[in-house]
């Protein structure tokens, strides 16, 4: 089994008939993703890589019921597309859009919570269960980075994830399911919200967290570990240990505000809870070896 998505999960694509969406849709299907429908308003009747296209998610659902939606829509339409998916009864949504307005993201997360749904993203590569299914855009063709295995990975980053995952693989491990919660200030779903699924997932023996300064997602993981609600080994790497306080580096929501949100505070919380924290990507592999086979 996997978490969030496996080879059986029926998937509807939204906004995938554009060039980039189409490119990744093809890769998704090649990797085994069970894509059943595509939705692009005005294009009903067409096909995308053999998949039927519909005007709306509701119309698609009436024919081929999907359980997950993969959105390739631009940032300013992401909210509408997420709402459309939720309204059509879909409870697992991934939106890769980089640049979703902050207040739209707040509404996306609020709507997801109200609907009891998990929305992953924006500003993410998506979710991948290597060898089984992919929702998003991962260089799964790079064997030294994406190899199936027993380590669950959750991340706020893109390139850094490739960096860290390469070290996980270099240490002899592979990836069960990787969830990119995304680099936005208000991601649709948060690290801690996936821990129950990882806890239950037989394929995941340990979990790696790729975090960074800002926010409180790493502290929330620490809290669940401390409470004994997550019992598998946790190894974390956090970027931004030496970032000057108050400086905003990048657009990724990496804002260090005073004492809270600093990497130091996150490391302290995680270590107190019993998680292992790597100070550099290479150490993630080493620490994993110390706790997992």
């Amino acid at each position: 089994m996997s978490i969030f998505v496996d080879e059986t999960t029926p998937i509807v694509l939204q906004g995938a008939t554009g060039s980039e969406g189409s490119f990744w849709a093809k890769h998704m299907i090649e990797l085994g993703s069970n894509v059943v429908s595509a939705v692009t308003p005005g294009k009903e009747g067409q096909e995308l890589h053999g998949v039927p296209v519909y005007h709306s998610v509701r119309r698609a659902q009436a024919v081929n019921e999907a359980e997950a939606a993969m959105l390739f829509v631009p940032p300013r339409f992401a909210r509408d597309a997420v709402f459309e998916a939720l309204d059509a009864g879909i409870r697992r949504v991934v939106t890769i859009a980089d640049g979703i307005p902050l207040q739209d993201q707040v509404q996306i997360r609020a709507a997801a919570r109200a609907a009891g749904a998990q929305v992953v993203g924006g500003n993410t590569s998506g979710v991948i269960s290597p060898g089984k299914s992919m929702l998003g855009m991962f260089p799964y063709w790079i064997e030294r980075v994406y190899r199936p295995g027993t380590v669950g990975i959750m991340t706020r980053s893109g390139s850094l994830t490739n960096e860290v995952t390469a070290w996980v693989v270099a240490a002899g491990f592979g990836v069960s399911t990787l969830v990119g919660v995304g680099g936005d200030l208000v991601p649709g779903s948060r690290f801690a919200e996936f821990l129950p699924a990882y806890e239950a997932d037989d394929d995941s023996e340990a979990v790696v967290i790729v975090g960074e300064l800002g926010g409180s997602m790493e502290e929330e993981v620490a809290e669940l570990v401390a409470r004994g609600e997550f019992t598998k080994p946790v190894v974390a790497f956090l970027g931004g240990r030496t970032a000057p306080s108050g400086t905003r580096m990048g657009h990724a929501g990496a804002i260090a505000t005073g004492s809270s949100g600093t990497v130091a505070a996150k490391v302290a919380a995680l270590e107190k809870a019993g998680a292992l924290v790597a100070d550099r990507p290479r150490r993630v592999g080493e620490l994993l070896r110390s706790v997992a086979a």
Partner: protein
Amino acid sequence: MKLLEYQGKAVFAEAGITVPASRLVTVEPGGTKQALRERTAEAARELSAEGADGADGAEGAEGNRHGVVVKAQVTTGGRGKAGLIKTAGSPEEAGEAAEAILSRDATVRALLVEEMVSIERELYLSISVDAPSARFLILASASGGVEIETLALEAPETVKRVEVDPFFGLQAYQSRGLAFDLGLSGDTAKQFAKVVGALYEVFRSRDAELAEINPLFVTSSGRLVAGDSKLIIDDNSLDRQKEFEVTREQFGTETEYAAALEGIPYVQFEGDISLMCAGAGLTTTVYDLVQFEGGTVANYLEFGGPNYRKARRAMELCLENQSKVILIVTFGTIARADVMAEGIVEAIAELKPDRPIVTCIRGTNEESATQTLRDAGIEPLLDTEEAVRTAVAIAKGERQ
């Protein structure tokens, strides 16, 4: 986008929040000290005249007829401590204050000259986002004038919070309740509730990340007046917030301004190594690794995401620094390694950089990237830590 105080106050005033009467004095590049003094004094004189005949009732609060405050318009915090805010009892003193501020920080491009308000007490009010709950978060305190983080640590019981559901929106009972929870009463409570409503409107309609009034003055005649403004517009919303433009005065340096216009995330530091890396997370990590290895960073620059085809522009920005080496680290998926490598090779050919370049380019089509770099005579590295060590060694003069 962090708005300057005067820009934020203009938005506040439009929303019905009272701000002090003021004049903006721009610092002309190349202008004389004498000219700045005179223009500042003139602004102060105008304000006094308005105060005297009460002509500025629309946006002004009651002022001390002669006193003004001269405030550097910069987006960095701690202006008071840095000597960038000065009070003046006369127009002449205002001119001297302007000169003193510029002597403290020559990058200041604008000064706000404000009437001095007679202050009874200072409150704190801000609206931001609470990510875990997916709510808009209003924070208020009866003890304003200090940083909210300090308040939260030193007197947590004085910091009151209201969470606003993004679909329900702010309700009257919430603004009212916050006023009473701060211990306000009567007309002050009513005015405060109105300010909360107006600031919420500003926050929502302007797609703000943060809308803060600190301090929010209660004047001796009982009016609520915004003593400062901190308004950060969400960069992801700028295409629907046409009202706001990136302006030079929002930035400390020409390079930061140029990068912002280009849409390239860029932060200026004072060290030796120019970072030109892909992804916020990886760039931040490289920043850490440089520090771990004893190096210093000249600039943070994100060369990735939508900018991965902008190698030339990114390198130009790095070269505007006094850095000793440019360190390029990427590990891209859509930001294809081969495209980035080609861009870098072209940029080198065109810009002929005067300093060494260290590359560590991985990701989609990395083999092709490696070949491209080799063909151009660059020895590509493929291990981030090794690349960082190499750059630090070059910066320290330990190798070329």
